[in-house]
Structures are given as C-alpha cells and as structure tokens.
C-alpha cells in the first residue's frame, strides 16, 4: 500500500467505513505500538494509547487535511498523547542524568562490557536516553522519518529536529563510553 492508499482509507473512514478502519489498523498498528512502547517504556500503556490514537482517527478522519502523510498524522497524535500522559505522571522529566544514576548502580564499565556484548550495551544506552532523545532516535533510525516528518510528529521546528538528533547521538556516545565502549566520538 502507498501513502495514496492511506489517504483513500482515511476518506472511507470519514464516511464511517469500518472495513477501512480495520485496514488502516493492520497497516500501522505495529510500528505505532512500538514507538509508543519505547517512548513510555510501558507496553500496556502503549496499547492503550495506540487504541486511543485509532479511535481519535475514526472520530476525526473528516478533519484530516492531507498536509502530512497519514502515518505522520497518526504518530503525531500518539506522540502528543504519550508526552501528555508522561507529564501528568512526572515521567517526562526523567532525563539522562537520572538514568545515569541507575547505570552507576550497576557493574563497573569493564565488568559490564565483559558480561554484555557491545550491541547489548548500545541498546541499553539508547533505552536510557531521555524521552525527547529516545523519540528522535527512534523516529529517524527505525521509522525512517525525514527532518520534516519528525518535526511534524514531535511538534518542533526542523532546525530543532537536526540539533536534537545531534545532541541525542552525542549523549548516546557519552553514555556508551561511560559503559566502557569508546567509539572515538565525540
């Protein structure tokens, strides 16, 4: 299916076609769920948020203006809902400084490196990034978002997307180095 097919599904959903809704769900639910699960670090919450996104899509399909792709629209709704929920719970404030404390309570970097492979350490460090940094890393690397699409999903200017990605990568490199892996950058 293409972006044009997605737009056709939204047009049919606006006309209350439940089959089109099923098709849209089948096409996007796994990636949306994974984005929300990584962002919230809670799979049950991610499922609930994902359903809320699709329910909102069902109810507001008529207001879709087609300025961005349907995928970007869905992710944007999901991102806003997730951040809003995390703010209410005080989770959005959890940044790398706080998670670094968690890392400090584990083994020394050398021991950690021996016990876990390089890939494990990199994945663990990505998961410990702040929500803002996790979101941009996932959007660009896993969801193939362009600068423009990431800006629409997160709701920030395009230049901020570029700098946020840069600082997310820089922070990630620092965390990886602290875990015992020096990749020579920054």
């Amino acid at each position, binding site marked *: 299916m293409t972006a044009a097919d997605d737009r056709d599904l939204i047009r049919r959903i606006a006309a209350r076609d439940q089959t089109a809704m099923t098709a849209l769900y089948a096409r996007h639910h796994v990636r949306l769920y994974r984005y929300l699960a990584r962002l919230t670090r809670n799979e049950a919450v991610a499922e609930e948020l994902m359903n809320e996104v699709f329910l909102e899509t069902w109810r507001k399909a008529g207001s879709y203006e087609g300025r961005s792709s349907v995928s970007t629209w869905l992710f944007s709704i999901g991102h806003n809902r997730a951040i809003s929920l995390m703010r209410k719970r005080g989770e959005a404030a959890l940044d790398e400084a706080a998670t670094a404390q968690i890392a400090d309570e584990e083994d020394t970097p050398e021991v950690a490196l021996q016990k876990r492979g390089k890939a494990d350490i990199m994945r663990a460090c990505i998961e410990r990034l702040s929500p803002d940094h996790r979101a941009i890393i996932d959007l660009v690397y*896993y969801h193939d978002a362009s600068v423009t699409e990431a800006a629409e999903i997160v709701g920030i200017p395009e230049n901020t997307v570029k700098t946020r990605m840069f600082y997310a990568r820089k922070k990630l490199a620092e965390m990886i180095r602290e875990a015992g892996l020096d990749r020579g950058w920054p």
Partner: protein
Amino acid sequence: MIDAKIQERDEIEMLLPWYETGRLSAADMRRVEAYLRLHPEMTARLALIREELAETIAGNEMLGMPNFSARDRLMAQIAADAGAMPQAGAGLKAWWTRWLPEGLSPGLALAAAAAVLVILVQAAALISLNLRDAGDDGYRVASGKQAQSAEAGTLLLIRFAETASAGEIAALLQSVGGTIVDGPKPGGMFKLRVSPRILSTAERDTILAKLRQKTDIVTFLAPAG
C-alpha cells in the same frame, strides 16, 4: 572564514543520520556527498551511525506485537461508536463524564465503564443468587443453587478461532478448569466459567494470561459479568 568552515562541518554532521537513511532532500544529499568527497575523514562518522541505526532497529524489533485483544477492544469501541445515536450518546456521555476524574482519557473512561458494568452485573448475580438460595429464614444449604447457576462464579467471554479443533478447545478448557456455560452468543462468543467462586483480580488475570497465550485457539477474551 574558519567560523564558516566550522559551521559548514557542523551542518553536514547534523545531516548525516538522514544521509545514511536516505531521507534527505536531493539538494541536501548532493551537499553532503560533495562535502564527504572533500573531507573523507567524515565518512568514519557514518560507520558510527550505522551501528546506532542497527541497534535501534534491533531494540524495536525485540518489542514484538501488541496483544490481539487490543484490536478486539478497539473494534468493539468503533462498532459501538458507529452504532450510537449521536443525540442519545451525547446525553449518556455527559451524564457518565460527570462521575469520572477530570482528564481521564477516552480509553480509560471506557475501561472504567466496563469495570462498573462488570461489578453491577456480578453484584446483581450475587444478590439474585442470595435471594433464590435463601429460605424464608435465610438458611442456605451448602449445595445451594449457586453451584449450579450458569451466572455464578468467575466468568469470561471467549471466542475461539475457526481453525481450532474440538480437541484443542477441550484441552485448553481443561487446562484452566473451565466450563462453557452459555453460547454461542452474537459474534460467536461463549461464556466460560473458570471458577465457581468470584476470583480475585490477580487470580483471574493469571487465567486470562494463560488463555491469551493460545493465540491459535482464542481470538477474543475478556472478563464477563
């Protein structure tokens, strides 16, 4: 001049993730390629990006899929939404939302509604059983009608996959000590009793989790009143 070079290097460095994923505009793609030709040392950064990209993908793929029951819940909500009369729905919603905490999401509101409904139905069933089982003096025998009532105990709504065999279904029900007490209902649903008593939420959830693992046999599962 030096500042301009640093600025250009920084700008190119910021574009590298999108260069690697192929999501740059044609103009930016040409700009990055031209810079990399003149500054081959910058290509080492691409190797780092490829590592980050690979582990981000791996981390996401390890997450798996959402529970199939999430889809059933959503489609049930949508079907209800599609069938609701706007006027009546608005009135009921207005009445219901007065009882909910401010800021509760629609999904959680629906879950709360479902929970209240389950409690009301279970309470009604228990009251009904008590009235029926109690004699004039309130005396009730141990082998009262409660044990035989289809509505007694902990009940689940379940739908089986069309491809599931009778043997598979029987084995699954036996594994949780379940008995079909009603059905088939609209949508191919059956009412399944998993205990003659009202189980705690934790006990019930353990059984739900066990049944949900059998995705090739069970296509819908939810607590029933």
